[in-house]
């Protein structure tokens, strides 16, 4: 079984928001909503100030609370790589999944169903990278299979210091940030 995820190099990311725009264009994200977003964290005081820029989205968690709390099964793990998806025709818009996601990764689409990042599953099925990964001008994002020890993402995790977001929330996120 594959386990798809991303590795993002915070030392290369400049926060240009190209990934955000690529996602909006690729996935027809409605105006005013975002499936991915940029977070900038400034720490410390000059001259010891540090800035970390993170491109964030749904973490396609392996223990996804949004999947376990969904009463209709609309939120589910896709057969390919455990990508977490929402089946629009099964979603009743109860928003339990929104409440259960510690990352705020989901939102209500104006058409009523709940929407979020799909890792561009339609592209992944054709062997392509998600749109955000493919447009990044600094090549700071990498997409791949963590279950394959020889994949680029696995090797990056072996060779560099990294962290994920809120691992203490117990969701086993599949996006890692290289520091």
């Amino acid at each position, binding site marked *: 079984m594959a386990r798809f995820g991303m590795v993002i190099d915070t030392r290369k990311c400049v926060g240009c*928001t190209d990934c*955000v725009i690529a996602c909006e264009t690729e996935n027809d994200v409605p105006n*005013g*909503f*975002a499936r991915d*977003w*940029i*977070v*900038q*964290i*400034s*720490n*410390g*005081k000059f001259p010891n100030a540090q800035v970390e820029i993170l491109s*964030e989205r749904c973490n396609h968690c392996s223990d996804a*609370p949004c999947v*376990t*709390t*969904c*009463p*209709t*099964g*609309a939120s589910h793990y896709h057969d390919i790589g455990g990508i977490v998806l929402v089946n629009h*025709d*099964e*979603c*009743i*818009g*109860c*928003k*339990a999944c*929104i*409440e*259960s*996601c*510690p990352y*705020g990764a*989901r*939102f*209500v689409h104006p058409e*009523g*169903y*709940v929407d979020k990042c799909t890792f561009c599953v339609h592209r992944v099925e054709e062997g392509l990278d998600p749109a955000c990964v493919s447009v990044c001008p600094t090549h700071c994002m990498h997409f791949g299979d963590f279950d394959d020890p020889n994949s680029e993402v696995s090797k990056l995790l072996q060779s560099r210091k990294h962290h994920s977001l*809120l691992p*203490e*929330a*117990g969701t086993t996120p599949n996006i890692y940030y290289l520091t």
Partner: protein
Amino acid sequence: MLEITTTRHNHLIDPILHAWNWEIPVYLFLGGLVAGMMIISGYFLFKERVKEDNCSCFYLPMISFVLLSLGMSALFLDLEHKLFVWRLYTTFQITSPMSWGAWILILVYPALIANILIRPPKFIANKIPKLAEVSQKLIEHKWAVKNIGVVNMLLGGMVGMYTGILLSSLGARPLWSTSVLWLLFLISGLSGAAAFVHLIAKNVYERELLAKSDNAFLIIELFVIAMMIIGLVTSSKSHMAAAHLLLNGPFASVFWIFVIALGIVIPLYIQLLAVNHKIKHTPIAPIMVIIGGLILRFVIVAAGQHSHWF
């Protein structure tokens, strides 16, 4: 110094999560109230109080039926994809409390109807004369009445617990991820129902009994709230921050004034005086308890959505 900026401004999510508005607290409140009424009327059936002509077990099920339907309507109003609501009943998701709740509620209606049939309200009985025969048959069979009582108590307990488990299963919200929330909502539902029956009961014995039980429920409720707060402040930083939302944060004034003081402590004091015959029974105390229960759901839902991991 830690400064965060984000480009995300999703509606209902940012800057503070408020995906659930008034509908969910109202649904949880009415669900809890109905749960309490089912337990109380089930208990009266079990105790064979059907012999009493003015037993509240004759009208509580009808009131529960109406209140539950109002609660379900509030839940329906909250759904964003309303036309797909039937999807709840094409599957059973064992890990989802909401799925459990949807199926339990399907069982609750027949249990309430069975309870109503023991003595159907006049406006229904007049229209369907056959119901009188059913009612007569049921009353003749003590075991049937007792079993309807037991089933109502069991299902009432499940609904009461469910209203709390629904929230506490959402671990992303530290305020809700406490193992006593089900108990708090169950007890608060029982206390609200006891107050309601105390308010409307025609039978003096029942009124007195429920005033006394309500006092016990209110004392237990205070204890459970204390347990919940202690559990949160001795847990992780995120849980501590969640407790402070209620203790001295943005929800503190509503929590202390409307939930604790006006919703529990003051009515408890009034009812203690009343059951000890120092003052006459007053409808003010039970009304305060009922409103306090509603505000409790509002505060917990709103503050819970405010709380987050960091």
